[in-house]
C-alpha cells in the first residue's frame, strides 16, 4: 500500500529499503507548507483515485528499481494534513549513492506527474481551493469552509498536466 491516512515515518521507510549490501540511502520528504501563492495555508486535504494511484505508485517504484540498481519505498498521505506534516516520503537504497540520488529524484517527479491525487488547500481567510484547478489565476469561490471550490479555470486538465511535466524538467 503506497497511500496511507496515518502519519508517515521516514525512518521506517529507510529500514524497508536499507540492507548491508545497499549502503547508500537517498530520501525525500515533501511536507505541508504554511503558504502558497502569497496566501497563508491552514491545512490540506488530499484525496485520491485509490486503485489507480496505488497501481501508478507501484509502476513508478518498479521503473526506478529496474532502471537503477536500487530498492524503493514510497508513501503518500491521504486525508487531512496539518502544516509541517509529511505528504509524501521516498527512500531509495543502493550500493552506489549516484543511483540512489537519481532514482529518488525520478520517483518524486513521476509521483507528481502521474499519480491521481488531489490537494485541497484551506486558507487562513476561510477560502478553499483545489490546487491545479485553475491555480492562482483561476476563479476562487470563497465562503463557508469545506463547501466552497475554485473554478476549473480556462485550461483543460490535459493542458495543465503537460505544463506540469514541462516545469518539472
Amino acid at each position, binding site marked *: 500500500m503506497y497511500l496511507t491516512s496515518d502519519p508517515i515515518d521516514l525512518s521506517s521507510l529507510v529500514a524497508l529499503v536499507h540492507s548491508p549490501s545497499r549502503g547508500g540511502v537517498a530520501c525525500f520528504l515533501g511536507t505541508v507548507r504554511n503558504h502558497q501563492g502569497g496566501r497563508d495555508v491552514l491545512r490540506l486535504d488530499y484525496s485520491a*483515485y485509490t486503485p489507480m494511484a496505488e*497501481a501508478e505508485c507501484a509502476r513508478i517504484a518498479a521503473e526506478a528499481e529496474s532502471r537503477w540498481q536500487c530498492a524503493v519505498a514510497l508513501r503518500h498521505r491521504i486525508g487531512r494534513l496539518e502544516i509541517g506534516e509529511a505528504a509524501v516520503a521516498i527512500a531509495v537504497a543502493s550500493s552506489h549513492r549516484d543511483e540512489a540520488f537519481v532514482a529518488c529524484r525520478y520517483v518524486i517527479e513521476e509521483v507528481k506527474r502521474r499519480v491521481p*491525487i*488531489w*490537494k485541497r488547500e484551506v486558507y487562513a481567510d476561510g477560502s478553499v481551493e*483545489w490546487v491545479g*484547478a485553475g491555480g492562482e489565476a483561476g476563479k476562487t469561490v470563497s465562503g463557508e469552509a469545506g463547501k466552497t*471550490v475554485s473554478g476549473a479555470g480556462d485550461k483543460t486538465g*490535459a493542458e495543465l498536466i503537460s505544463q506540469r511535466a514541462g516545469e518539472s524538467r
Partner: protein
Amino acid sequence: MPSATVGTLTVRVLLFGSYAETLGFDEIELSLDPPATVGDALERLRALPGGERLPPKPLCALNLSQASADASLSGGEELAILPPLSGG
C-alpha cells in the same frame, strides 16, 4: 456487463476533486446508446447542472488506464474523470 435498458450500455463514472464539487456528486451510472465513446459520456456529464464547467478535454481513465475522448465503451467500464493532478 451492460444492463439497464436493452440496446444500451452502462458505465460507472467517477468524479474527483474540483469536478466532484462542481457537479455535486462523485459517482453516477450513465446509460448510453451504442456505439459510444468516452467523449459521449463526457457530453452527458456536461448536460448536467454544473457540467458546463468541465474543461473541453479532461484527463480520463478507463478501468484505471488513461483513455482519450475517442476511446470506445463496451459497457461495464469504470470511467474516471480526473482534474489536474496535484499530489506529491
